[in-house]
């Protein structure tokens, strides 16, 4: 194939090539740093993975001591769920004004609102848990506060997006009928957003259940603390049983939650 037979002119894409080169260079540097600076040595363990797996997910079923503890573990899991539920519900309500504040079509200072919500989201939840444990003491109460405040960040942002997507013409109709501002929001906006709001709140509950299982490690209640302690003691049978409890409960909640969300929207 000779070049002369090729009638197509290649478009001038030097700029694009430069961009790719730049991205490539940045990625090379990032990976170079990551691979040279991270200490990825394999330190090994006295136990083989097979043994650990067996002790985690097989032995607990035949260990009467562990089986006797199952009700206790379920109790911890109930506390975990309670932290997630109380935290999510409070966040779901508190996030509503933040959502309106951050939505372009309902707020003049939506940049401020978005800024606050992004700020909250940029704090990993463990940081909130640390602050609340240090200030109000250990226990599930601190966990609820941490989950509650942290969830406002994501819920507020999602709410704002829902509000921005509503049909604003309806509001005009209500305004034309002589409704005041509060009435227009109550009858024009709220019915349009309630299903999505609830759906997102339920979705957030799924996330918060997972979060509240780990908040225990800084003393914020739930199943996290006993789990970490058992793992520090290398009590793999207990760890395994608690993991099984977590997996089963989380799976059930996910299934229920998905069903409910499907019906809402």
């Amino acid at each position, binding site marked *: 194939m000779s070049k002369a037979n090729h009638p197509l002119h290649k478009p001038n894409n030097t700029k694009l090539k430069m961009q790719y080169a730049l991205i490539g260079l940045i990625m090379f540097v990032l990976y170079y740093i990551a691979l040279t600076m991270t200490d990825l040595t394999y330190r090994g363990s006295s136990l083989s993975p097979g043994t650990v797996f067996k002790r985690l997910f097989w032995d607990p079923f035949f260990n009467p001591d562990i089986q006797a503890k199952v009700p206790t573990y379920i109790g911890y899991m109930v506390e975990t769920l309670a932290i997630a539920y109380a935290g999510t519900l409070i966040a779901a309500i508190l996030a509503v004004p933040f959502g309106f504040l951050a939505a372009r079509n309902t707020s003049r200072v939506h940049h401020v609102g978005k800024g606050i919500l992004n700020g909250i989201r940029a704090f990993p939840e463990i940081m909130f848990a640390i602050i609340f444990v240090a200030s109000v003491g250990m226990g599930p109460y601190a966990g609820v506060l941490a989950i509650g405040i942290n969830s406002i960040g994501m819920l507020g942002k999602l709410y704002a997006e829902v509000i921005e997507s509503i049909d604003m013409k309806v509001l*005009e*109709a209500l305004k034309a009928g*002589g*409704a005041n501002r509060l*009435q227009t929001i109550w009858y024009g906006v709220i019915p*349009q957003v309630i299903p999505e709001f609830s759906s997102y709140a339920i979705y957030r509950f799924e996330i918060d259940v997972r979060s509240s299982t780990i908040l225990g490690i800084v003393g914020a209640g739930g199943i996290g603390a006993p789990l970490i302690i058992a793992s520090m003691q290398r009590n793999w049978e207990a760890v395994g049983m608690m993991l099984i409890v977590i997996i089963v409960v989380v799976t059930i909640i996910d299934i229920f939650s998905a069903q409910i969300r499907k019906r809402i929207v």
Partner: protein
Amino acid sequence: MIEFRNVSLTYPNGHQGLKNVNVKINPGEFIVVVGLSGAGKSTFIRSINQLVKPTDGELIIDGKNTLKYKERELKEMRKNIGMIFQNYNLVNRMSVLRNVLTGRLGHTSTIRSLFGLFSQEDKELAMNSLSRVNISEKAYTRADQLSGGQQQRVSIARALTQQPKYILADEPVASLDPPTSHIVMKDLKRINREDGITTIINLHFIDMAMEYADRIIGMRAGEIVFDGPVSTVTEKTFEQIYGRPIKEDDLRGSDDE
């Protein structure tokens, strides 16, 4: 009575929506405003309840210059003016009855309305309005489950529930098919006759304007270029208003009866 005195409206982007409009609308009239899209029909209608605010002149409704109104007086005035939109503008996820009841919001205190405590009279009024447009059996259906024509009739019921002195309709049949368009127009006309509600409607279909209007106002480029009873209107008049010969698109087609 509504009276425009030298009313002009310039949008923030510099576009002139209305240019020195002078017109008197008498009680009980059924007026159709015609013109090409962009001629200022919508601006004209929306000026009356001040969804857009004219920048010059006086707009007298029932003896008072409404352009001087503050927020509170504006709300009082809007209670008396029902409005119907091209896209119905119902709250999709609410039931038909609740949508119709929003017509009473102006008459209901904020607290009561937040809890949905509409009075028994209001509810009866709402049901009554629904039966007047023959759709009362859909009262508990969600608005988004109705067809376009049904939704438009619900929005007429909503306007009726306000017990207005005036009804404004901004292209009420533009999204509907010909038979449904005629049903909606007949409903509007009947209400106009029975209740004596002054009705002002934007249409761009010539045949429909001729069929239903008492009086026709023609607009072009923000100005009123024709105003007269329907008996004085001919095809020639429309060609003057539109500034071009009449085309097939300008006709809605007849009611299949």
